[in-house]
C-alpha cells in the first residue's frame, strides 16, 4: 500500500491497469466518511463553546444557572432514543423489518419529546430569571442547548428519510447504512449532551472542569 510518507510519486507504475468499471453505486463509504468529517467539525464547535464557558467560569462574578430538574428527564429520553436506534441497527442487520420500523419511529417520537422537553426547560428558565439574560451562565445555557437542539432537529431530517426507506423497502438490510449513520449521529449527540449537561448544567462543577483542563 502506498502511503503519503514513503511513496516516491515520480516512479511510474509498470504494466497496464484495467480500467475502472462504470455504472456502479454511490459509495456507501463516502456517506460515512462525510458523517465522520461532519462530526469532527461539530466537535470543534461544541469544544469552543465549552472552553468559552469554562473560561468565563474563572471570573469572580460567576453565578451558575438555577437548577432545572426537567433536564434529568430530558436526558433519560435522549438516552432511550439512542437505545432505540441502536436496537434498530441490530435488527436491521438481522433482517427483522417490522422491528426496525418500530424502533425508528420510536426513536423519532422520543427525540421529539426531548426537543419539546428542552423547550419547556427554556420556558422555566426564562421565568426564573424574569427575562434578564445578563447572567452569563444563563446566556451560555441557552446557546449551548439551543445549538444542540438544532443539531438534533437536523438529524430528524435524516431519520425521516430512513423511516421512509424502511417502509418502502422489503429488504431491510439494504438500509442498514442509513440506520447506522443515524445511530452514530444520535450516539454522538447523546455523548455531547452528557458532557455538556454533566459538566456545565448539573451544578457548579467548577473544580471538576478545572481539573479536567489541567489547571489544578
Amino acid at each position, binding site marked *: 500500500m502506498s502511503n*503519503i510518507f514513503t511513496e516516491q*510519486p515520480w516512479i511510474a507504475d509498470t504494466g497496464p491497469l484495467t480500467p*475502472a468499471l462504470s455504472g456502479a453505486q454511490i459509495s456507501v463509504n463516502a456517506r460515512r466518511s462525510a458523517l465522520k468529517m461532519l462530526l469532527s467539525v461539530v466537535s470543534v464547535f461544541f469544544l469552543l463553546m465549552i472552553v468559552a464557558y469554562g473560561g468565563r467560569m474563572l471570573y469572580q462574578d460567576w453565578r451558575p444557572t438555577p437548577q432545572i430538574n426537567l433536564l434529568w428527564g430530558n436526558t433519560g429520553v435522549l438516552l432511550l432514543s439512542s437505545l432505540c436506534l441502536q436496537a434498530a441497527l441490530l435488527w436491521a442487520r438481522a433482517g427483522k423489518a417490522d422491528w426496525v420500523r418500530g424502533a425508528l419511529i420510536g426513536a423519532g417520537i422520543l427525540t421529539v419529546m426531548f426537543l419539546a422537553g428542552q423547550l419547556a426547560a427554556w420556558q422555566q428558565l426564562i421565568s426564573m430569571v424574569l427575562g434578564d439574560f445578563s*447572567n452569563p451562565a444563563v446566556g451560555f445555557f441557552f446557546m449551548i442547548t439551543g445549538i444542540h437542539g438544532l443539531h438534533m432537529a437536523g438529524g430528524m431530517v435524516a431519520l425521516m428519510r430512513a423511516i421512509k426507506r424502511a417502509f418502502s423497502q422489503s429488504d431491510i438490510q439494504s438500509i442498514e447504512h442509513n440506520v447506522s449513520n443515524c445511530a452514530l449521529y444520535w450516539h454522538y449527540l447523546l455523548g455531547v449532551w452528557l458532557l455538556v449537561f454533566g459538566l456545565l448544567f448539573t451544578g457548579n462543577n467548577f473544580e471538576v472542569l478545572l481539573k479536567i483542563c489541567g489547571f489544578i
Partner: protein
Amino acid sequence: MEHIAHDETSFVRPAEVGEMELYHAKTWLGKYVFSQDAKTIAIQYAATAIAIGMVALVLSWVMRLQLAWPNTFAFIDPAYYLQAVTMHGMIMVVYLLTALFLGGFGNYLIPLMVGARDMVFPWLNMISFWVYFTAVVLLAASFFVGGGSTGAGWTLYPPQAILPGTPGSEAGILLMLASLAVFIIGFTMGGLNYVVTVLQARTRGMTLMRMPLTVWGIFVATVLALFAFPALFVSAIMMALDVLLETSFFMPAIMTMGNEANHVGGNPLLFQHLFWFFGHPEVYIVALPAFGIVSDLISIHARKNIFGYRMMVWAIIIIGALSFVVWAHHMYVSGMNPYFGFFFATTTLIIAVPTALKVYNWVLTLWQGNIHLTIPMLFSIAFLLFFINGGMTGLFLGNASVSMPLSDTLFVVAHFHMVMAVAPVMVVCGAIYHWYPKITGRWYHEGMARFHFWVTFVGSYLVFLPMHYLGIMGVPRRYFEITGTTFLPDSAQAVNASITIAALVVGFAQLVFIYNLIVSAMNGKKAPGNPWNATSLEWQTEHTPPQHGNFGKELPCVYRWAYDFSVPGVEDDFIPQNVPPRTTTPEAAS
C-alpha cells in the same frame, strides 16, 4: 492497497471504491440553475463571487478617493467611510476569495484532476451554492436597512460593533452576522463534498501523492475551513445574542452615550480569540489554494517538474496544522495577557519556515527550466514578487515587539493586501487564463490579456509599496483623514493621492479582464483540448469543454505523478498522467 512493485511483472492496482452513479438533469432549470454538475456549480460560484467582488472593488475606490482628496467628496462622510472599509474587507476575504478558490476552482478542478465524474454528493453541492447565494443576498441587504451596513471593520470587534457610535450597530450588524452564519453552513456542506471526493473518489492509480498540488492546496484549505469556521459561527451567535437578548458574552459593564448599559461581566477579548482562531486559518484558506495552483502553473509553463513535490505537500499540511496555533499574533496589542506574546511570536515565526521552503521550491522549479513567458507564467512571476514582499513584512508583524510600532497602522494594511489580496489574485488571474481554453474551448484575446497583466502587476505594486511607508511613519488604519497631526509631513497626503491614482487605474484594468473573459467565450479562436501540453487529467478529457461525466465512457487510469515534464529519454517534453509506462505518448498508449 498494496505497495507499488517496481519490477517487470504487470501489476493491477484495484479501484479503491466503486464508481459513482451520475445524476442527469432533464429540465433547463435542473441543468443550468439547480445544476448538480460540479462544473456548472463552479461557474455559478465564480460568477457570484466576482460580481460581489466588483462591489467591494468600487467600495475601495470610495475609500481611496476620501484618503487622497479629503474634504472634496460630500457623499463620503465618516460613517459611510467606515461602512465601505468594513464591507470591502468582509466581501473580499470571505465572499470573494474563499468562495472563488474553494467553490469556484475547487468544484471545477477537483473532480477532473482526481479522475472522478463529479463530486460525491452532487445534490448537496447544488444546495451549497444556493446557500452561499443567500448569504450574499443577506449581506447586500445590509446596505439598504436603516442605519446602513455595519461600520465596525471586517473584524467586527465588540463592544463597539453593537453600540451606538458605530454605523449599523442595530440592523446592519445583525444582517452581517446572519449572512456569515448562512455562509458557514453553505461552506460546511461544500467542504464535506470537496474533502470526501478527494478521499474517496480518486480514480484507479491516483494515489494521494500523485495528485497535482492544486488539489492538495484546495483540499487542505477545505479541511482548515471546516475546522476554523465553527469559531466564527460561535462568535457570531454570541454577538447576535448580545444584541437580541442583551446577554453579556462580550459586553462588560459600560457607559454608552452617557448612560449605563444593561450588560455586565462579558469579555471583549473572548470575541477576539474566537474570531482570530477562525481568522488566521482563514488567510491560509485563501493562500493554500493559491500555493497549490501556482505550483502547477509554474511547472507546466516552465516545462519542468515542481521541485521537491513531497516537501511541497508536507509544507502545505504543516502550514495548515500550524495555522491553528498562531492566531494571537493579531492580538499583541489587544490587552490580552502580554505573556502570550512569547508563545505566539515563536509559533508565527516557525510557520515562516515551511512557507519559505515553498518559495524556494517555486524558484528552483524555474532554475534550469524551459520557461515560456505565457500569460499564466507572467502572473505566476507576479505572484512570487508580491508574496515574497508580503511574506517579508509578515516577519516584522509576527515578531511581537517589532510589530508594536507598526500595529494598527497602514503597514498592516499594506502587508495583508500584498500577501493575501494581490498575490492570490495574481494566481486567480493566471489560473483563469490557464484553464480558460479548457473551460470555454476558446482562446482569450492575447493583447487584452497582456495589457491586463502589465497594468495590474506594476500598478498593484505601486499601490501597496508606498503604503508600507505611510504605516512606518505612523499613519493609523481606518482613519477617515490624517490631517491635524503634528508629526506627519504634508507629503504623506501626496503619497495617498498617488496610491489612489494607481488604484483607480488598476481597478479599471480589471474591467478589461472581465470584458475579455466574456467576449472571448463567444468569439474567441477555438482552442485545442490540451494547448499547454499539460499532464494532469483535466487536460486529457474526451471533449473540450468537458461534458457531463467528465471523461466519457471510461474513467482514466493513472500510472504516474502530474509532473513528468522533460523526462530524459522521452521525445515529448511531457507525459500525461494516464499514459502507461514504456509508451510515452497518449496516442501510442491506445
